[in-house]
Every structure is written in C-alpha cells, then in structure tokens.
C-alpha cells in the first residue's frame, strides 16, 4: 500500500503547488518546519502513515464525514454551505471597532467568550517583528486586540494547536480561513493521537476568503510609499478595484491588478469561500455596509454564543438585504467553478479532481 506521510505530502500537495500554508501539517512533529512561506522537511520521516497527510485540507477530503461530524447531516452542495441564519452584525465596543477590519465581530465574540470563561484561549494569527504571520493563542482581551485585522497573507495558524502539550485542557476558540477550518474539521472527524484533545476547540470561526497574498507584496507597496506607519490594509468591494493602505492620517491605494503577481497560486484550487465547516463564518459587510460584518450561523454552538453576545449588547445585528445574500452566493459559486476548472486543467480530466470529494452531479453542475 502506498504510504501517506510527509514524503507523499510533498509529492501530492506541496510540490504540486496546492499548499495554502494553513499549518495543519506541522507544529506537532520535528520533521516539518515553516520558513519564508514554505513548508520544509528537516529530516527523513520513514512512517507510512502520518497526521501531516491525514489532516492536510488538500489531500483527499471526505466531505460527507466532515458534514456529519460538524452538522449531523450529509454534504448538501449548497453554495455557501449550511447556513442556519445569515445577517449583518458589528461590535458595540468602540475600542474593538477601531482596531477591527470591518465590524469587529470576530474579536468581539472571542473577547466575550474569553471574559465569560467559555474559552480559556483564542487561536489567532499574530504578526511577528518582521510582520510575518504566525499562529498564536490569545488568552486575554489585550492579546486578542493585538491580533485584530486582516493581514491578507497566509498564516500557519494551526501550528498553535498542533504543538499544544498533550495534557492541555484549555478550552479554545479558533479563527481561521476556510483551509484552516477544513484541516481542523478533518481533525475533529479523526481525532489526532498523542495530542491535546481536539474537542477542546469549542468554537470555530471561519473567515470569508478569496485568496491570499505572498509576503513580497509588502516590499512592492513599500517601493511606492512608506508603509511602515500602516495600521490597516483593506480591499474594498465592487465597484472599487483597489488595495488600500490606511495610516492614522491618510489612505493610499494601488490598483488591485498590480498585486496580482503576489496572489498565491495555491488559492486558485480552493473550493471554499465562506469556511463552510465552521460554527460561525464571518466576512466583510461589503461596500454598502462598511463597518459591518456579514455573518453566517451554521451550528447550534454558533447560534448560542451569538444569542448570548447579542443579549448582553456586545454585538448588534441587522437584516441582510436579499440581493446582498444573492451576491454572496454567486461569488461563492464562482469560486467553486473556477477552482474546479483549475483543478481539471492540472489533472487533465474530470476523473481526477484531486482532494475534492464531490459528486459527479455537482461536478457536472459546476461545469455547465
């Protein structure tokens, strides 16, 4: 039987250009490391089966198994996944609003959960001194605030979970991109051996994502204007076509097309825009609702925390207009179509759709 460990991980995923640097494969064993936007093999692992391969979101993914685990029903092939409720929301906390990308809902929910003792820590992304994103566990509001905002870069967030000591009993919240959530979901389906209990992750928040940028974009921007004082990056929605850099005093922009060389190619094979396996998915409120988040509630756990937070006035909500929802669904569907097309271009035919465990029916529908 062909082995499925680190060697195969490189053959089937990394060398094929599918790796989105989610970090699901490392932080647990000494054989894999992360350096300058690459997963690196340090030593030769001779195992025939490894967790690195098993939990990678770009190896064979049993969507039904995940759906059963998270939602209790089979995979539904919906454009934005299982969505109990979709609405707009934002934080009521002024400090969070200032630091937030859009509505501050993620920071708000996690801060609320921390304060209430529902979780002991939140697995987040934090920028190091060289502004490189890493996985980080925030254990209080201050630390959480430091992680607020979007970096637009891939972040190996899952390493923070992977190298938790086996005995850890900390209840955790988690925020990540769709690929992070997919990897985490695989872990929930088959809990990893010799590690901290994956059931400790009580709340999973997924962010909407189209693609990420490689770190080089910083230097590119810096050649245009001084980004050392930047406090936020933002990509405003249609009809704008720019990448905005905010400082305390002003905003600078470049045309979005200029950043296309930095778009990570691996993202073009990604099937999930809205993080379909999270408890709650959060995205921008789009141009119409600047300063708000679009929120999708998927599970009971997600609904519960949102109700409690709303009841305590930590966040406020409003209805999402029908056409906004339509646009969202269309955008998500487009991503699926593009991903499938790119995958088929790579493999040469619909017989091999790489990691996507989707039905022939869905394939046909998407290709129409």
């Amino acid at each position, binding site marked *: 039987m062909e082995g499925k*460990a680190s060697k195969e991980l490189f053959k089937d995923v990394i060398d094929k250009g599918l790796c989105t640097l989610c970090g699901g494969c490392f932080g*647990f*064993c*000494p*054989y894999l*490391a992360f*350096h*300058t936007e*690459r997963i*690196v*093999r*340090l*030593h*030769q*692992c*001779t*195992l025939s*089966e*490894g*967790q*690195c391969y098993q939990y990678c979101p770009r190896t064979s993914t049993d969507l039904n198994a995940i759906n059963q685990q998270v939602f209790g029903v089979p995979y539904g092939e919906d454009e934005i996944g299982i969505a109990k409720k979709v609405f707009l929301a934002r934080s009521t906390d002024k400090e969070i609003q200032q630091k937030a990308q859009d509505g501050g809902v993620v920071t708000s929910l996690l801060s609320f959960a921390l304060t209430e003792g529902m979780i002991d820590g939140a697995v987040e992304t934090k920028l190091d001194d060289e502004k490189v994103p890493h996985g980080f566990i925030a254990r209080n509001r201050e630390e959480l605030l430091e992680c607020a905002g979007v970096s637009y870069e891939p972040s190996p967030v899952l390493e923070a979970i992977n190298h938790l*000591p*086996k005995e850890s009993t900390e209840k955790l919240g988690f925020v990540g991109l769709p690929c992070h959530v997919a990897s985490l979901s695989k872990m929930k389906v088959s809990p990893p*051996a*010799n*590690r901290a209990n994956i059931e400790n992750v009580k709340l999973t928040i997924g962010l909407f994502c189209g693609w990420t940028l490689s770190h080089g974009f910083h230097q590119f921007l810096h050649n245009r204007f001084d980004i050392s004082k930047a406090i936020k990056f933002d990509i405003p929605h249609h009809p704008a076509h720019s990448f905005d850099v905010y400082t305390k005093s002003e905003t600078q922009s470049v045309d979005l097309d200029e950043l296309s060389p930095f778009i990570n190619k691996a993202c073009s094979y990604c099937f999930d825009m809205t993080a379909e396996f999270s408890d709650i998915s959060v995205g921008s409120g789009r141009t119409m609702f600047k300063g708000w988040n679009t929120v999708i509630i998927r599970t009971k756990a997600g609904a519960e925390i949102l109700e409690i937070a709303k009841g305590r006035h930590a966040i406020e909500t409003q209805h999402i207009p029908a056409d906004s929802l339509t646009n969202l669904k269309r955008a998500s569907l487009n991503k699926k179509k593009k991903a499938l097309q790119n995958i088929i271009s790579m493999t040469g035919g619909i017989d091999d759709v790489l990691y996507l465990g989707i039905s022939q029916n869905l394939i046909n529908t998407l290709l129409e």
Partner: protein
Amino acid sequence: MSNIEIDAPGTTQFLLGNEAIARGALEAGIGFATAYPGTPSSEIMATLAPIAKKMGFYAEWSINEMVAFEAASAASLSNIRALSSMKANGVNVIADFLVNLQMTGVGKGLVLVVCDDPGGMTSSNEQDTRPIAKWLNIPLLEPSTAQECKDMTKWAFDLSEELGMVCMVRSVIYLSHTRGNVRLDQLPKKKKEAYFADIYDLDNPRQSRFTCGMQFHPYKQSEELLKKFSKASEKCESSPFNCYEGPDKAELLIITSGICWTYSVEAVKILNLQDKVGVLKLGVTWPLPEGFVKKYLERSQKILFVEEIAPFVERSVMEFVANLPPDRTRPTLYGKRSGHVRAWGEQNLDLVIQSIASVMGITYQSRQSRSVEYSQKVREISQTLPNRPLTFCPGCPHRASFWAIKNALQLDGRNGFVTGDIGCTAMGMISPGSFQVRTYYAMGGGVGIAGGFGHLGQFGFTQPVIAVCGDSTFFHASIPGLINGIWNQSNFILAILDNDATAMTGFQPHPGTGVKATGELGEKVSIEALCRSLGVNVEVCNPFDIKKTTATLLKLMAGVGGTQVVIMRRECELVRARRDRKKLYQMYVEPNRCIGEACGCNRLCARIFSCPGLVWDREAGKAKIDDAVCAGCGLCADICPQGAIIREAV
C-alpha cells in the same frame, strides 16, 4: 605509561614503536623536536614533550608540519641534532621545503620520522611515502620491530651527519602502535651548543657561506647531491639492519622490509618452510643495498616481495635485475605486479601466508579452517554481527553543530552544502554529523574549495556554501584560504567548530588552547580576533543552543554575500569530562511521555540524532539512556519532540 627517560642501559622497557623512536632520539642526544599531530605518529611528540625540559631539549607542537620541519632544520643547521615527526600527509605538506633542503644539506643530524597508515584506518587516504626518498635522494630506513625503532632512529642521526643530509625513518601504524620489549642503551651527557656558522664574511663577501657551503646554483647543487648520495650507498650497504635468515640456497627468496619482515618470518614458520624459503630483510630501502641483495638474489630462482603499500622495493630490485649481465638467468619475480601480493591496503599475517603458499604451490589450513564444523559455525555467527561505524562521542559539540547546520540548510531550501576538512569534523560525512559534509580532501581543503564555489554566482550558482573546519585545522591550513575568500569577495560561510582541542589525534594543544606541548601556559591566540582583524563579519555561538545557532546560520546565508565566519564554540566533551570528572546532568527518559515509533516522533532520537548514549529499547518500544555510555551533556532533552528526555543537574 612507559618510562623512556630512564638512565639504565642494558635494562628492558616495554615500549610502543613510537616510544622507542623517541627513546632512540634521546640516546642520540637530540636537542630539538617538532611535530604536528597525526595518527599514527602523535605518540612520538607526546612522549618527548613532557620530558623535554627535564632532559634539556626543546620540543614543540608546531602549527603545521611545514613549520615544524623548517624549525627542526634550523636546529640541525646550528649544530643541534633535530627530529621532526609526522604522518604521511605531513610529508606532502613539507615537500617544497624538503626539495630545497636537499639542495643545501644539513649540519648536525636531522631525522624525519614518517608514520604511514597502510589501509588508511586513520587517514583520509592511503599513502606510501617511501617513493619521495627515491625522488629526492633521501636515505630511507625502515625499522621492523620496536627495538629497531630505537636503534635505527639512533643510527639515522649518525648517518645524517656523516652524509650531511636529512635521513628518513619510515614506520607504519602496525609498528608504531605495537608494544614490545626494548633493551635500552646509554643516554649521552654531552652539552649542546648552538651556533649558525654560515655568516657574512665582510672581507670576502662573495665567499660568504650560504647554508652548508652551497652556492645558489640549482644544477650545481644537484650534482653535489648525487655525489653525496653515492657515499650513502657505501654506508648503507654494510648496515647491520640488513640481514638474511634461511637456507644457503633458498627455493624462494622473500625480500621484505619494515613490519612485513615479521609477517614473512612468522609465515615461513607457520608454513613449515624454513628449509626452503629464505627471508632477506632490508633495513635500508633507499639507496638499495645492491651488493647485499645481489648476493642472495643469485642463489634463488623465485623472489617474492612483501612490503606495503607500493611495490617500492619491488621496483628498485626490478631495475637492478634489469641491469644484470645478459648471461645471468633471471629469477621469477612475484609481488604486486604479478598479483601475488595485494597492491592496496595493509599487509597482515594471513595475507602473507597466502602469498607465500600460492607462490610455493601449497595450501594452508589454519587451526580454524581445519575444522570444517567450527569454521561454518563461526562464519554463520560472524555474518549476523552488527558493525561499529565511527561516531561522535556522547556529548560531542559537533553533533549539535551539524544538527544546526542541517536544519539551517533545509530551512534555507536552496540546496546548500558543506565542504569538509580533516579531523573530528570529518565525521560530518556520516550519520552522527547528519550526513552533511559533501566534499572532503586535505587540511584546509574545506575553505579553499568553498572559496571557489563562492565565485560561481556569475554562472547562476545560488547554493549556499558552508566550509567546516576544526580549531586546530583552522590554524594549520585554513587561514590563507579565508584571507583569499575575503580579499576576492567570495560568497561562503566559514564555520569553525572550536572545541578547544586537536581532538581526533589525542587532544594535543594548539595556539588556540593556550597550553604548549611541554604543559607551559601561553597567550591564547583568539580565533575571532584574528578573523575580525581581516575585516570579516564574525559571529560566535554555542552549538548547544541549537535554535540560536540555526538562526545565526540562516541570517548569514540570507545575507548580502561575501565571506562570513561563524565560530561554534563548545569544549570537547572528553576534555571537559577528564578535567571535571563528573557529568553535567543525569539523564533519563520518562517512558510515559515517549511516543517512540508513533507519528510525531518516528524515533527521532535513536534514528536520526544518533548518540550512542541514547539507545532504543525494542521490547519496551521506548528510548532509554545507557548510563554506562551517556556523558550527561543534556542536549538530547532539547531534541525530543515530546519532552520525554529529562535532564537533572548533578
């Protein structure tokens, strides 16, 4: 262990071949001894240095063999008997000076002792240095026993003085490291006075002597050298170290030298061929004692040459046989050319027995092979025995250094590599050094070749290059290569693995250790100060801090280029243990935390980290510390991904 300074002529001491050489030098009234560590020669200086002050002579571990030999020559040009000892590769290093020394000759006796390593057990190569004697017309003596090591070294000084030229005494590892009964002779009590006589003659400036009276005309000096050398032939012809043992007319004449004589003599005994086979021992193998050889050659139809490694004596005798008058029947010559004697590697008793038996057309059965059942049983079990490959000692800082180097090269991801050098660091080629060394040549070779790689950028070369050398090697040979790299702006990193010792050869001191051969203290030469004075960026780190060392290497590799130096400094564990006499930590494995073969570990410690003190318990499926071997350095605790290896301060 042995007492070589004892003044008791006629008594017996139990000496190593190398100790006997040292004693021979003492009995010859030596005043000056120099060496650079090199197995199998190191014991000569290690024996002489501690007694130098007491016995009234000067002894020094020089920075390299070239300087050692030059210094010894100075003494011999100044009325002081001098000796310089080295391994075969050292002769390569002194070759240029030696060529020129032959042009001038010497005053008082100068003896060059060379210890070869047939089989290359302790060397980067296998080398027979004897041909250099023929090339440069140097009298060459080959002792065969510990007693001869002493007696022939002593004689070499006399011979050197009588001829006015350096004399070479050649030993091999099997002789240098053999201990035997040695009967001592007298120790001279003559006072030594040094003076260099070739001074400026103000009244006759044109006639001022120039080192031993030679004028500076190379062709004239060549002529002089040949004249001197013919005198050597006369003296060596009658040497008592050439001898014959066997029947008057031997069916087979074995011509042999060095330790191979003892193999030959014993082989003849074992084969019970004492009345058919004669053994001719040559104590002087260059110039060939032709008269002596001719006498016995004429009485035998078969000649077998037993020597190591090259067919040196074989070829000399062949030349001689070719010159015999045409009416003489030529004997059949057996040796390396005919394939009867192995032409590579060391000789041993078994091989010589086989060679003689095959020439004589007989078969030999040993005590083992006579019993078929025994032979079979023993062969079966032998095939199942695991080998013992070389490893870094438990606690060795090089294990940590190469671990960090490997991590850094993998993280960097541009297929960078290590150019290696001689010494303990050479084991970077194999498992204990994570198989990191990719090139391996001679002393200083690492930095030199790295300097070349560092200039290939214009052809698209992007692979980072790390030259690795030890502290003693750095002083011996790496400095010119480093300066060349800096001056020519070559892109490479020189990693000096400074464990404060010349470890591989037995912990001899060097300018960086602050102790001299005689035990006296000296001002340490600071490697980083030396490097910084060359204007190069120097980082110093502790290899046991693997994280920091890896980060430093990555930083250097990602840097703008040019030559950079990193010193990975931590004391050799054997030196530390010998001094402190206790472990740093008590180590143990917490079995409940060890996940061994499971994903997340895959036996990283036993399979890849590779320390002999950390063993794999197959039955329990866990790692375990072997207390009898573990040095207690604590490094493995940082390697274990599960934190299962515990270190407790002692």
